[in-house]
């Protein structure tokens, strides 16, 4: 090999060298095969790619690929002697092992060999005010099993990116005006008034004597406006959305706020309570995208939501539900450990190990001083 120590190379048997060279060519062939399969997978879509890469043939491929790493670590002593290369290759082994263990076939092996019965992945839909532990498959709704504990949905809500709406004004003569509900906007009004100015836009107006069942709700818009009369008198008031049952009326004028309907969701929140009766454990956690719940070998991710109209004795009622993506954490620690090793190894081998040599070379004095 080009980078082998020449002395070692001279001593190694030619057959051994040939075997190592063949091993490297086989590794390159595996890289090429994996690249080809990945390109194929990219064209067929993630679902079919998942089926392809978890098929029986590819299981053999992964096992052989893993074996190649192990054989390489034994055959190439340089991989073990050089810390960077050792970390890189061990990291790849860990990632492959962890990924295999976390797959559906890995969970099947866990059940057969270790008696660990976990659901690899599924979905859990929970209505507000109810609890559930039945995990189902995506799309088909096929039951996949029950969790050994329950999840209760206390509340579901969303936060939005707010965009300014419109302020509507109407007087007793039927005249009407509208302006964008932006801070600083003014509107000239006929007598007895003179002018109106928007002072603030509020996304969550809270009135302390008002009782709600959604204390964290971030969608309670209002405008803070100032009205100036012709005689110079000023009055400040709040204007609520026009669909609220209490419009703002001052003298003959009616003020209403129409929030912008094109608001984009910023995040989704589910206030969950874990009820583990077997272990006498109960705790609550608010989850959102990027911040899942982790309990008893499962992660629960905010995946989706919805609402449905439910008929009650008091009439129809809109009920919200959250959909959680339930994923087993088997193999995850091994994968992350592999990532750390792989990363550390690559940075050490390509970057860090050269730094001391650079400074030594830079500070080295020449043997012969120039006159």
């Amino acid at each position, binding site marked *: *090999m*080009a*980078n082998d120590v020449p002395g070692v190379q001279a001593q190694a048997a030619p057959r051994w060298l040939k075997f190592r*060279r063949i091993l*490297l060519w086989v*590794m*390159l062939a595996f*890289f*090429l095969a*994996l*690249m080809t399969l*990945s*390109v194929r*997978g*990219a*064209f067929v*879509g*993630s*679902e079919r*790619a*998942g089926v392809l*890469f978890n098929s029986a043939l590819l299981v053999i491929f992964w096992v052989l690929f893993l074996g190649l790493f192990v054989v390489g670590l034994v055959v190439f002593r340089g991989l073990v002697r050089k810390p960077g290369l050792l970390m890189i290759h061990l990291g790849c082994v860990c990632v492959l092992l962890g*990924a295999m263990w976390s797959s559906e076939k890995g969970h099947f092996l866990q059940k057969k060999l270790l008696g660990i019965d976990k659901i690899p*992945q599924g979905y859990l839909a929970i209505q507000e005010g109810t609890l559930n532990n039945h995990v189902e498959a995506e799309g088909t709704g096929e039951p996949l099993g029950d969790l050994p504990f329950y999840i209760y949905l206390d509340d579901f809500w969303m936060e939005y*990116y707010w965009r300014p709406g419109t302020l509507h004004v109407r007087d007793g003569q039927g005249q009407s005006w509208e302006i964008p509900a932006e801070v600083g906007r003014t509107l000239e009004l006929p007598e007895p008034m003179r002018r109106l100015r928007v002072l603030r836009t509020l996304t969550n107006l809270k009135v302390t004597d008002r009782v709600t069942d959604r204390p964290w709700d971030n969608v309670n818009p209002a405008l803070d406006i100032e009205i100036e009369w012709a005689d110079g008198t000023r009055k400040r008031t709040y204007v609520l959305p026009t669909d609220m049952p209490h419009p703002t009326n001052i003298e003959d004028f009616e003020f209403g706020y129409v929030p912008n309907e094109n608001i*984009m*969701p*910023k*995040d*989704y929140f589910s206030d969950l309570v874990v009820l583990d009766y077997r272990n006498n454990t109960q705790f609550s956690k608010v989850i*959102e*995208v*990027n*911040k*899942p719940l982790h309990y008893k070998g499962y*992660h629960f*991710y*905010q*995946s989706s939501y919805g609402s449905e109209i439910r008929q009650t004795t008091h009439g129809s009622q809109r009920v919200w539900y959250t959909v959680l*993506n339930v*994923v087993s954490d088997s193999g*995850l620690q091994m*994968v*992350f450990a592999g*990532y750390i090793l*792989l*990363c550390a190894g*690559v*940075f050490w081998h*390509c*970057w860090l190990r050269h730094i001391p040599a*650079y400074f030594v070379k830079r500070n080295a004095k020449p043997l012969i001083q120039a006159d």
Partner: protein
Amino acid sequence: MEIKTTVQGYLIYAAIAAHLLAFMVSVVGLKKSGRAIYAVGFALVVIAFGYRWYHVQHVPLQNLFEVFLCMGMFFPLSVFCRRFLRVGAETADMMIGVIVLIPAGFIFSAEPRQLPPALQSWLFAPHVFVYMFSYVLMAKATVQAAAQLFIRNGKPSDPELVSYELGTYRVICLGFPLLTLGLILGSYWGKWAWGDFWGWDPKELWSLVSWLAYLGYLHFRYMHGKKHSNINSILAIIAMVTIVITLLWVNLAKIFAGMHSYAS
């Protein structure tokens, strides 16, 4: 093709002009002046990037306009390659700057968008930054590889600089850890956002293809060293093609629908 008649647009056009002027000045032999103008071009890109950041109120790395603007900040890496790796071709780096800024200035939409829930993570900025810097480094390595193939004796005229083949290897060694870190950060983030550290998404698969391509180059070079310099260079160029596909084709082509489609 659109002309951006906004402050953002003018800053980008000024940066393109500076990079182009730096390139032309360097080509005629005024290297020092070229570097000075290149530095001015870099400052303009940084101002444009900072302006965008202020305008959208989040790290501007969400869509192709923003990532291409980010890639325009290549100057420090170019200086690093020359100073510490003794890899030249800064003139080509100036042209790389022009090439990545032109789509930002004339092609991709600069319409600001709010971050969807999945992108509201501390991993968003490191994942994208690291990838973009690795991409421009690999582009520099590709220039070195092309120079090795097409310039006789494969050596730059400046004796202080290493050969183009060694320059390709050194720059790939500089960029490969960033490529690896970008891939790993993306996987780690995917686990926290979507529940899966590998979802077989087209973007993920093409990222793996480009990572494997460079891994193949490094293994081949380990096996043969400089004996097959031309093959080394061809492998580096093929690997760069996979990066272009990963960055552009996957985001823009409708055949690759996936979770990363928000970047288009």
